[in-house]
């Protein structure tokens, strides 16, 4: 009888995710007795080689953890260093940081939504083969992505690993005219994002509800990027400086990525769905209307609908970018001066995939003596494994190839970035 057998579903190298990982599910009588999301991305030891480096080097160096969300690393590193040095970046420089982050959200979300995730809903192995029938949508997606990248190119110097960010601000602030030139394409992007959201809202979403604890920044005046308190759907409400008191990382022997837990509870979810559910009222009213028309309102607990939430955030980022540019008054200086001193600094900002935490301890010359970095995928790993555990009874009754495909779909919802978390997926389902 099939109930008496253990079966293993294994995906040896997950596709359409950033980085290298594998997934093993051991089934016994339709129940998952073991779910392992193994990240075999080789370790790169950032926290070790940052020791002995200058505080000024951390943004450029840590940005190399991830080619898809380098701005997030720049922002968390800069905020942590400024915290240690007692510096505040406000006014136009703060607005320019939000503008740069808008570019990364648009570029990173569009990459996942159009090139990696939409093919799953329409039944294609990749966006290129999807383009044969849905060419207009793929082209629209690429143009949205490019519009996001145009912000990175101007504000950062280039799309991947920008060069213009420093502790205290920027090396060079843009002129009004340079930013104005981007406006027509950003306005097109805002309208195109609304059309894409309307189209995607008609996709078939599996009916799944998950009891996540959502964790994200919350700010009284705006949808969160770089500032706010860290809050959760179960009552957590802390200063970013108290992160280590409430969260901890553990190591699994089968993975090179550390995994985070909330003390006393366990798995939690950060990223687009968490931000959306915890900050819906902070979306621009017109973006809230777009979300309502697409049928996504909080509380949204369906991981498949993260596709729609990413589109909502793309619309939000375009609207915010336009707002920042229209109100831009060039700063007096491109950066705030910083003077080295001893201390510990904490920085937490909202990367496209979720909360990204940096902590540094500096000596009196500004040399890093200790560094700790917790990327969003490390934080979401347990939630992804829980999701697969709940999916296991369904997988148990599917032929191997289909089970593998379904498990990959479930993982891809989270847009895991494995380069970050080791700093993705081979599926293996074992049945007893």
């Amino acid at each position, binding site marked *: 009888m099939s109930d008496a057998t253990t079966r293993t579903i294994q995906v040896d*190298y*997950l*596709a*359409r995710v*950033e*980085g*290298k990982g594998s997934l093993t599910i051991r089934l016994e009588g339709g129940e998952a007795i073991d779910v392992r999301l193994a990240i075999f*991305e*080789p*370790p*790169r*030891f*950032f*926290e*070790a*080689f940052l*020791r002995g*480096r*200058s505080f000024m*080097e951390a943004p*450029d*160096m840590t940005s*190399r*953890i*991830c*080619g*898809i969300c*380098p701005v997030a690393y720049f922002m968390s590193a800069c905020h942590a260093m400024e915290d240690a040095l007692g510096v505040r970046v406000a006014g136009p420089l703060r607005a320019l940081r939000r503008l740069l982050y808008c570019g990364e959200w648009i570029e990173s979300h569009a*990459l996942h939504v159009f090139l*990696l995730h939409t093919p799953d809903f329409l039944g294609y*192995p*990749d966006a*290129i*083969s999807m*383009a044969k029938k849905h*060419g207009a949508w*793929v*082209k629209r997606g*690429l*143009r949205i*992505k*490019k519009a996001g*990248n145009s912000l990175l190119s101007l504000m950062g*110097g*280039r*799309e*991947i*690993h920008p*060069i*213009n960010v420093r502790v205290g601000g920027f*090396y*060079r602030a843009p002129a009004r005219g340079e930013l104005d030139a981007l406006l027509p394409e950003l306005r097109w992007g805002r309208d195109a994002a609304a059309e894409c959201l309307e189209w995607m809202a008609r996709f078939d979403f599996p009916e799944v509800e998950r009891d996540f604890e959502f964790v994200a920044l919350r700010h009284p005046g705006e949808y969160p990027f770089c500032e706010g308190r860290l809050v959760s759907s179960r009552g957590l409400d802390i200063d970013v400086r108290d992160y280590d008191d409430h969260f901890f990382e*553990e*190591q699994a*022997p089968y993975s*090179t990525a550390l995994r985070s837990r909330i003390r006393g509870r366990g798995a939690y979810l950060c990223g687009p769905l968490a931000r959306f559910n915890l900050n819906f009222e902070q979306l621009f009213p017109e973006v809230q209307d777009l979300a309502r028309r697409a049928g996504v309102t909080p509380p949204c607990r369906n991981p498949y609908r993260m596709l729609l939430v990413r589109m909502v955030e793309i619309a939000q980022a375009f609207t915010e970018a336009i707002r920042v540019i229209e109100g831009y008054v060039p700063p007096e200086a*491109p950066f705030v001066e910083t003077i080295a001193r001893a201390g510990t600094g904490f920085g937490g900002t909202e990367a496209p995939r979720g909360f990204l935490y940096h902590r540094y301890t500096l000596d009196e010359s500004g040399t890093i003596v200790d560094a700790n970095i917790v990327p969003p995928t490390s934080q979401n790993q347990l939630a992804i494994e829980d999701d697969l555990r709940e999916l296991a009874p369904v997988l148990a009754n599917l032929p191997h190839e289909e089970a593998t495909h379904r498990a990959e779909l479930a993982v891809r919802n989270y847009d895991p*970035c494995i*380069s970050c978390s080791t*700093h993705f997926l081979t599926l293996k389902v074992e049945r007893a």
Partner: protein
Amino acid sequence: MARRRRPKLAVWKFASCDGCQLTVLDLEDELLEIAGTLDVAYFKEAKSADEPGPFDLSLVEGSITTGHDAERIREVRARSKVLVTIGACATAGGIQALRNFKDVRAFASVVYASPETIQTLATSTAIADHVPVDFELQGCPPNKVQLLEVISAYLNGRKPNVASHSVCVECKLRGNVCVMVTGTPCLGPITHAGCGALCPTYQRGCYGCFGPMEAPNTTSLVRAFRRSGSSQIDVVRVLRTFNANAPAFRAESEAQEKGDEGTP
């Protein structure tokens, strides 16, 4: 008449940040056309269906840091007609090559509670240290226009036309004021061209993310840095970032550390 077979392209990842592969996907205007001209046969980050090869052109991102990856790159080489490495990790070992200057076990214990379960080599090395490479495209990340040139060159059976002069030349062509004049250390005179002199254009010194140019005069530049007030530790730091293990940068940083005047 038989239809001409589309050449097979493969994109491979080793230890890296995924940024160089993303350079391919950042060719937003050209991506669908490339996919029409080439058969994108293997590209894990972008598609779930794989073809077994052999491949006409393999683009390799990332460095070799594990015994398993040292084996895997030999397999990739055996299945590839032309192998091109893209980015600082693949051409010089990347930022993770900073372990080459330290004890990797000590590094592992800083990051992991149980370092003994972490499989890693003591060094991070370039792909060319393991297998023959047909062309190396430098940069952290490489320039996407240069990447497009490399792809089309190999499709048409010619050598890529990629400038081999320094960032300094690109800077002069842009008409920038030299940042060294204001005392900002700049690696532009010894760094391989390709970025379009971005950093000096944004009023900062070049930090060498494209790696050394051919035959760089590192000693002379380092002497100029020291004269304008950089300390020995500043000089070692600036040479030890994304291309720390590139031979020219490595030799100079080690000479500085030993307190030599510079490499002969």
